[in-house]
């Protein structure tokens, strides 16, 4: 990098001068240029010298020494196999997560929106549909189950690249330093997202703040680093995957397991230990871990007979038997329902442009009843098969309120104020004929834990937005 190089980029010289002053200005410009170049050269030389000095320092002992990492199967091919699985899995997690965010209809105002400062990060929001009615059950079941199932793959991927953490010198260039900073967001992000998600589905609320906010913004931090990492490494991954044949690997025994050829990334051990397992064995162990997690988890999202197979998942048993024996998100006791508020004195208030209506449960039961078979699907990933609900159509109640083409409805519960004690539903949700203010389920009155005297049930709606113990509906244009 000698002085007097190419002229700087156009536009960096300040405004153009009229031609009469050209010669004079040219001279000054040259001097400024020369000075800047000299300064740059000096600066770069200084950095160069520093880098050279760091490079010449021997690495500290332990993991920084190249001979420390000895696994004979660690190498670009194995890393790329795990990387490929995550390259498919992580985008599915991100998209299903974003869909869940949209399903809460945060666009309907502060009541629904726990991340009012989301700004551009909510750019993709759309009106959450009611078709197909099992949509949220599927997307959120996939989100949570896939997240759990990918845990061994993430661990294996991180294991496979651990020598890179202790690379010496820590950075050989500005490019590498920046990339490593991005890796902090990548690794911190992936662990943060998996940990907060996995703790939340077990109702173990130890993370610092609202899960909704942390998991949402954390996802953006992570995905920004993930996209960069994937795009910077994509070519290296495909090259590494082509370097060995998967089927051949699957037939290679322990005696024939050899390290991969040395790689520029330094993943391959310089002094490999004798192999204790094959690549096939490593992949089988990680895959086996994923399979085992799938078996002990997926049943809570499938329901029916398979619910019992989800041995370690939170919603793996039915809380009771009979018509109301299906899964409960929050019991009446847990949210502090006052029994007096849901006793004989309970009334449903319907607000609209016209006069307010106050109805007893008997009056509601005397009105034309409709049926819908709909599941409860929770953000925590569990769900129930379709339950047969009976009650009043939200569309009919909107007409009763004097606003048949209502654009939204505010649903309020008797439960004490807190998250999800009230929610706003959109016009498309009101007008779906399967959207009910349910009074009965599976041929019996709602139980208190399922929202007696009345609850909302809307197709494809996140469970927590199917408000229970409803006492007021406010229809708006």
């Amino acid at each position, binding site marked *: 990098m000698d002085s007097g190089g190419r002229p700087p980029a156009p536009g960096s010289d300040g405004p153009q001068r009229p031609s009469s002053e050209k010669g004079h200005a040219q001279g000054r410009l040259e001097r400024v240029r020369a000075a800047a170049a000299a300064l740059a050269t000096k600066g770069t030389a200084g950095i160069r010298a520093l880098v050279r000095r760091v490079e010449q320092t021997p690495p500290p002992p332990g993991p920084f020494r190249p001979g420390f990492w000895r696994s004979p199967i660690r190498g670009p091919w194995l890393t790329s196999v795990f990387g490929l699985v995550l390259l498919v899995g992580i985008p599915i997690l991100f998209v299903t997560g974003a869909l869940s965010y949209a399903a809460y209809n945060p666009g309907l105002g502060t009541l629904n929106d726990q991340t009012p400062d989301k700004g551009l990060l909510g750019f993709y929001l759309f009106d959450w549909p009611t078709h197909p009615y099992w949509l949220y059950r599927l997307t959120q079941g996939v989100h949570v189950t896939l997240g759990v199932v990918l845990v061994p793959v993430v661990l294996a991927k991180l294991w496979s690249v651990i020598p890179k953490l202790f690379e010496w010198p820590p950075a050989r260039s500005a490019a590498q330093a920046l990339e490593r900073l991005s890796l902090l967001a990548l*690794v911190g992000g992936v662990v943060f997202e998996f940990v907060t998600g996995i703790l939340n589905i077990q109702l173990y609320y130890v993370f610092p703040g609202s899960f909704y906010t942390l998991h949402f*913004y954390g996802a953006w931090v992570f995905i920004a680093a993930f996209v960069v990492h994937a795009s910077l490494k994509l070519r290296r991954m495909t090259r590494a995957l082509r370097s060995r044949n998967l089927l051949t690997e699957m037939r290679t025994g322990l005696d024939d397991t050899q390290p991969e050829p040395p790689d520029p990334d330094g993943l391959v051990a310089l002094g490999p230990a004798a192999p204790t397992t094959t690549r096939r064995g490593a992949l089988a162990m990680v895959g086996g871990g994923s399979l085992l997690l799938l078996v002990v988890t997926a049943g809570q999202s499938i329901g029916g007979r398979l619910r019992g197979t989800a041995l370690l998942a939170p919603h793996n048993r039915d809380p009771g038997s009979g018509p109301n024996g299906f899964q409960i998100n929050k019991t009446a*006791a847990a949210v502090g329902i006052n029994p007096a508020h849901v006793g004989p004195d309970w009334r449903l208030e319907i607000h609209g442009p016209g006069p307010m209506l106050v109805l007893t449960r008997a009056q509601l039961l005397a009105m034309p009843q409709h049926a819908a078979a709909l599941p409860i699907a929770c953000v925590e990933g569990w769900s129930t098969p379709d339950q047969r609900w009976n009650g009043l159509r939200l569309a009919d109640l909107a007409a009763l309120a004097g606003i048949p083409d209502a654009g939204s409805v505010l649903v309020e519960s008797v439960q004490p104020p807190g998250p999800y004690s009230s929610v706003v539903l959109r016009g498309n949700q009101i007008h779906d004929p399967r959207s009910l203010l349910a009074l009965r389920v599976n041929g019996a009155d709602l139980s208190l834990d399922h929202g007696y005297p009345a609850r909302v049930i809307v197709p494809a709606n996140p469970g927590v937005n199917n408000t229970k113990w409803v006492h007021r509906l406010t229809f708006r244009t």
Partner: protein
Amino acid sequence: MARFVRWYGSGPLHLLVLIASFAITGYALVRLFAVRPLEVAIWFVGAAILHDLILLPLYSLADLSAQAVLRHRAPRMPQPPWINYLRVPTFLAGVLLLVWFPLIFDLSIPYPGAARLPEGVYLGRWLAITAVLFAASALAFALKLRRVHRATRATKERPAPGHDAAP
């Protein structure tokens, strides 16, 4: 361009992509850190440290120690490689514990009240799964041992055929 590469260490596209990513990261981080910034930062960076500098070294050390300790037992008989019969069930039981430990150790206070499900069942279930995994591994190892011993006996007998021939 060549000068840039020499100075920066990679092409300009690398720099552009990284800056774009950092801008998004910054945009989300401001919001992530809006409430209780220090604790969130500790969780975020701590997540990477917890994995890279605690969990991974611990399990690597456990694996190496298991191999080292048991390697020095002078084998009276030829032994097949055995570490995977210990490694695999430990890994499987370990990931189950890693994912489901709040339920296994009854750490979630709201869970029983919220779901109306008793919490106490998970430790027993996890232990039962662990028992099945290790028992299956032990059985697989026993079968392997038997095969190896039979093979050794066969090779021992071969050098002296007819010595102990039946009358």
